[in-house]
């Protein structure tokens, strides 16, 4: 395998540093961020077939927010927390990708 000089990097494991190469997967890894409890994010790409809430509305935990059609199923998306809807980033008929922030709730 061909190796370039600049491929070798300092890599710390606990208290020591080692000269090594990195894998592509490691280089592209995402840094962890604490998820916000009020963010309702799509787990599948799909279509919004019904929207039940609007901005400013108070919702209770477990309340139906919208119906998201994906994988041949009308998936019921419910509120993860009680609070006030502060953002709605979808409309009925919208096609959305995975990991899309659909609704933001400000927890009470």
């Amino acid at each position, binding site marked *: 395998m061909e190796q370039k000089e600049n491929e070798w990097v300092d890599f710390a494991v*606990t208290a020591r540093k080692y000269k090594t190469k990195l894998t592509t997967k490691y280089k592209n890894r995402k840094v962890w961020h604490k998820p916000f409890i009020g963010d309702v994010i799509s787990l*599948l790409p799909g279509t919004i077939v019904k929207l039940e809430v609007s901005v400013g509305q108070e919702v209770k935990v477990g309340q139906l927010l919208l119906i998201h059609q994906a994988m041949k199923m*009308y*998936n*019921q998306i419910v509120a993860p927390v009680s609070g006030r809807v502060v953002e709605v980033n979808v409309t009925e008929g919208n096609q959305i990708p*995975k990991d899309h922030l659909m609704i933001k709730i400000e927890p009470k």
Partner: protein
Amino acid sequence: MTDLSKNIQALREMKAVVEMGGGEKAIEKQIAMGKLTARDRILSLLDENSFHEYDLFVKHDGRDFGMDKKDLPGDGVVTGTGTIFGAPVCIYAQDFTVAGGSLGLQHARKITKIMDHALKMKCPIIGINDSGGARIQEGVGALAGYGEIFYRNTIASGVIPQISLILGPCAGGAVYSPALTDFVFVVENISKMFITGPNVIKTVLGEDISMEDLGGARVHAETTGNAHFYALSEQECFEQVKRLITFIPWNNQQRAKSFESKEPKTDLNIETVVPVDPKQPYDVRDVIRCIADDSDFLEIQEMWAANIVIGFGRMGGETVGFVANQPMVLAGVLDCDSADKAARFIRFCDSFNIPIITLEDMPGYLPGVDQEHAGVIRHGAKVLYAYSEATVPKITVILRKAYGGGYIAMNSRHLGADFMFAWPTAEIAVMGPEGAANIIFRKEIMEAEDQEAMRQEKVKEYIEKFANPYVAASRGFIDSVIEPKETRALLLHALKLSVLKEEYRPAKKHGLPPF
């Protein structure tokens, strides 16, 4: 005569000293953290007066860094035997009050001794983990100790049930003992499991994360899948362990204990639980409650990969394992995590003579770049392997959708299912009507004046012709198309019929499952 009473008195005094573990102050600290002491944990789990302790007087091995002058009662671990609902078990509990429950060579040897005992006596082994990690002062002796435990976990795997409770920290190499065992129990705010802690992650990678977010109970129950049972208190956790023990056999040569057969007690009507429209979600656990004895179902890994449901119930008084797609979560797809979850459970059931009932309603494998790149091929294959390899009675009921690779994977006839039932609402086909019509009738649709109308017409035609159980039934891939109400009676019949089932595989050292 007087001499004997003196000796007994001396023994009692020595025992009392060691049984105090790390002493009153350390015990107070342990209790302040919401934790029981090691001995109290064992006593809470076992039948009253059934605990017999081993190796109370073992001394530690440390000779360096002033350790030779220190006394560590019981070397920081309590081991012994007892019973749970009359079932014999071997048990050990690390004692955090003694040098932080740290593991030295003799501590480990106490554990390996009780593990060897469990393997010889063919009874379950329960480990309660609460330890700061390797006893650094003992150096490589501590590492040797861990290795000897892992080796026994592996050798005992599939022979006796192995249960791990994480009731405190369990960090670094220590995590691999629970990881090798069959069931891991965690408790909110008490369990912490990780390979490297937040401090190291912060200094090396600059990622800032709390201990709870990195390896708390919820994380392992919900995100990593390392934990099988999650409880809010130690007492709840002990109740979960005891309940699990009633469902599993003592070893791989026996069957689980039989109970009296009980009719399901749910008010739910099996004919209305599952919506006819294949696009409408429902909770598949309601179907399980409609068919299991007493509607009793012990779910495993409830929060992780919830798109598949696994767990134990009883049919006619005998333990069965349920594997069911969950349309309520991610439409019930198979993906990397749900495949891992199902495959491991199927292999547990097969190892311990527990028949498997599969309830199928799934649209297929989850598409997506992240899934493909996460290795859904490799993970998905585990389900095929586990079902094909299993020789316990295997029964499938197709409730609604059974499409494509998912149909094959979910214990199909082709993987060796013994009984294949389908409800009249079943749709067994190579792919969903929309996708299939677009491919098969591509030319007709392209040439039509009104393409959308033609597409709809062809989709309808496909649904009528293929989205049903009768095409598969006509090939004998399905044994019977049944009415939902008949499900329990037919499952009981099938289980009765397969009590003496024998099926052999070619002799081999071991297979090579894709893990």
